[in-house]
């Protein structure tokens, strides 16, 4: 009897603790803000704002920098900043945060995901919010401040950077010199991609153990879905081959240019220039070059890309821009969004707008703390460099990822770049050829079945063919056959119809 009573008591106790557990986790919403930090000017409780950002690598001083960012935001905006760090390709992490309704206000839109984020209801329409807070954004973009929209739904504020996705070959200058190859100032002696063959052959002969061309499988002249002097209007299925003059959509994977690039890659692969595992490699060309055994990789380029490459790899680099820069709308979808689960979208918008105008915040984010991770080297407080006694290997924080932060040009410009980099970029953007589709973005929400199947087929072929690992003669034919079987023509037709309607409404 005694044991049974004891057992009953124990059992009841277990049930009670279980229920208590359910109860205890309820959020205590009306907690008093810690007294010391609240600014005296405003009595309002600080808004808890969650900002997700991408980082290239972990730095030991991250927590110090985060704290400085939090202090700045609390001081200037009366908000408690909660910083979430994501890897440089954050699609999966974001998907989980968005679908799971986790705390999130402002986050970077992975390029190309605009349409799916709208149709899944993940993001806020920024249009109405921009009426309240757009002062700094308008300073940057003028009338184009709401250009990143799909049929009126403003999905993002674009990142302030180059408005094209031209590709280029990044080569190590010391190796070129060792082989006695002169490519001229800014590679002026090279005219087209075919010119690389002779260079590769020379490097391969002189350094037989070096990987001549390599990188990540996504970044080869033939497998990337950006650049190429074309405009893909949001996805790879139906592109403008001559975006400045023609508005007819065609299949890129059947075009002469694609075939030519694939054949070149195949030629290089068979000659032994290309990294053998390129079609499955996930190590970026930058990382491989830094490791010391890679001569050349392919990447997106822009003015002063060689400076950026040298900073990142530690080797002097030259860049051959072989794509014509085309101002296209896809670059606009590289931007900053407000999540639909934001508890106060207006506050989030206020913060988003503030970021485009806060040099201090941009500096903290990209370069770290002044005096510790960087310092000004000129009187005008524009150019910056490592502080004395600190270098690339010992610095505690140095993201150097200007293309991911909202407005890199108000922050310090790293030494090696011209002091007027902002103007150089503005001119670059202003003077490049504009695609007829600039501002148009395909809305594929009605065609998700086809797009899902097409994406799966692209994954299957694009990188293997693009790395030269298989015979393009047969594989390209198979690739296109599968694409058409999965409804490529349906997508091209739908895209053409939307595009024509958009052109007519302009």
């Amino acid at each position: 009897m005694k044991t049974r009573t004891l057992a009953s008591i124990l059992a009841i106790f277990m049930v009670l603790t279980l229920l208590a557990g359910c109860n205890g986790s309820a959020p205590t919403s009306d907690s008093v803000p810690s007294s010391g930090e609240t600014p005296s000017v405003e009595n309002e409780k600080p808004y808890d704002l969650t900002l997700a950002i991408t980082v290239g690598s972990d730095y030991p001083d991250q927590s110090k920098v985060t704290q400085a960012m939090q202090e700045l935001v609390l001081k200037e905006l009366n908000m408690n900043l909660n910083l979430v760090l994501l890897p440089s390709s954050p699609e999966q992490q974001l998907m989980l945060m968005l679908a799971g309704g986790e705390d999130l206000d402002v986050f970077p839109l992975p390029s190309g995901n605009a349409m799916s984020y709208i149709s899944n209801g993940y993001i806020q329409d920024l249009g109405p919010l921009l009426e309240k807070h757009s002062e700094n954004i308008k300073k940057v973009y003028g009338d184009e401040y709401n250009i990143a929209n799909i049929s009126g739904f403003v999905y993002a504020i674009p990142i302030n950077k180059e408005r094209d996705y031209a590709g280029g070959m990044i080569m190590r200058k010391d190796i070129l010199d060792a082989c006695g190859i002169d490519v001229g100032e800014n590679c002026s002696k090279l005219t087209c991609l075919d010119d690389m063959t002779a260079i590769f052959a020379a490097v391969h002969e002189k350094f037989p153990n070096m990987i001549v061309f390599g990188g990540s499988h996504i970044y080869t002249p033939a497998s990337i879905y950006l650049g190429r002097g074309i405009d893909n209007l949001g996805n790879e299925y139906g592109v403008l081959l001559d975006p400045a003059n023609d508005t007819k959509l065609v299949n890129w994977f059947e075009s002469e240019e694609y075939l030519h690039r694939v054949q070149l890659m195949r030629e290089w692969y068979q000659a032994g220039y290309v990294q053998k595992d390129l079609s499955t490699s996930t190590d970026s060309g930058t990382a491989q070059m830094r490791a010391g055994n890679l001569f050349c990789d392919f990447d997106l380029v822009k003015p002063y890309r060689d400076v950026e490459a040298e900073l990142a790899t530690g080797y002097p680099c030259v860049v051959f821009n072989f794509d014509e820069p085309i101002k296209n709308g896809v670059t606009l979808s590289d931007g900053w969004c407000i999540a639909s689960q934001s508890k106060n979208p207006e506050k989030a918008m206020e913060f988003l707008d503030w970021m485009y105008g806060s040099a201090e915040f941009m500096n903290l984010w990209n370069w770290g703390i002044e005096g510790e991770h960087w310092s000004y080297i000129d009187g005008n407080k524009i150019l910056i460099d490592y502080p004395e006694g600190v270098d690339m290997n010992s610095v505690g924080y140095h993201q150097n990822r200007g293309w991911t932060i909202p407005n890199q040009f108000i922050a310090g410009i790293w030494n090696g770049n011209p002091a007027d980099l902002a103007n150089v970029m503005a001119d670059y953007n202003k003077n490049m050829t504009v695609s007829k589709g600039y501002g148009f973005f395909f809305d594929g929400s009605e065609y998700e079945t086809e797009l899902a199947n097409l994406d799966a087929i692209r994954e299957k072929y694009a990188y293997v063919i693009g790395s030269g690992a298989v015979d393009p003669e047969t594989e390209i034919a198979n690739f296109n056959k599968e694409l058409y079987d999965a409804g490529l023509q349906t997508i091209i037709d739908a895209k053409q119809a939307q595009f024509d309607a958009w052109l007519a409404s302009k």
Partner: protein
Amino acid sequence: MKDKATKAQSAGEKKLHRKNQIRKWAPAYLMMLPGLLYFFINNYIPMTGLIVAFKKYNVRDGIYNSPWNGLQNFRFLFTTGDAVTITRNTILYNLAFIIVNTLLGIVLAIMITEIRHKLAKKVYQSVILFPFLVSIIIVSYISFAFLSADNGLINRTILEPLGKESISWYTEKKYWPFILTIVNTWKTAGYSSLLYIAAITGIDDTLYEAAKIDGAGKFQQIWRITLPSLVPTIITLALLNIGRIFHANFGLFYQVPMNSGSLFDVTNVIDTYVYRALLKIGNIGMASAAGFVQSVVGFVLVYLSNLLVRKLSPDDALF
């Protein structure tokens, strides 16, 4: 009259009896309650979310208020030209894995239980279990160390010194059914042997003693005593595995072949296909539809195989 009275009496007794029974087992029921609650909250309530497979889901309206979408979400699974390939791969690989793992698991279990030296037994057991605890990402890089075209162990230290052409493993389809089976066996055989070791330890020792007295040799003991005693465990495990035959081990099929496109014909399974197709689109309805199909097929298969087992040996059926 008398009959009725006794009946009433016995009914009353029964009631009393039942009451006593409940009183008697009350603590046990109470102790079961947390488990039941957990099971209900964690396994049954989420099942209502299955309706998302039939909806055009968006976050703003939530699971229950999003508009209905009929069977639209299921289309991408069946309209793709790869439907046959992915179904075939999923089922054949899983079948192969079930057979190889069961056979090897039993052999390993018998071998390990026959070891008399205590320390050696523990060492062997831990060594074959270890791969099961290794993350699949690490497994994929271990495989890469063997198979890499540039620096792989097989190409560099076996094929090249023998004067043979090195093989570009990640673009050659024909090797992968074997590579995947080997990797999977290496990784999971230890775990399945663990279950059989537990079952063998549970066999009554007197059976073996009696067999010895009757003059049975080692192999006869294994054949006549160990294996028959393992049959219920084998059937239960096989049924559980059949229930998951439509679920592929994502890590194995995605990470180990390094997501190489030219291998898709032999490495693409339902889970990897869904992942590749929906990564960009992120349609939760379509992803749930795929999961729904997998579960339904798994349920039907378990039910059918259980029917079969009940026909052949009723004692061993699960339900």
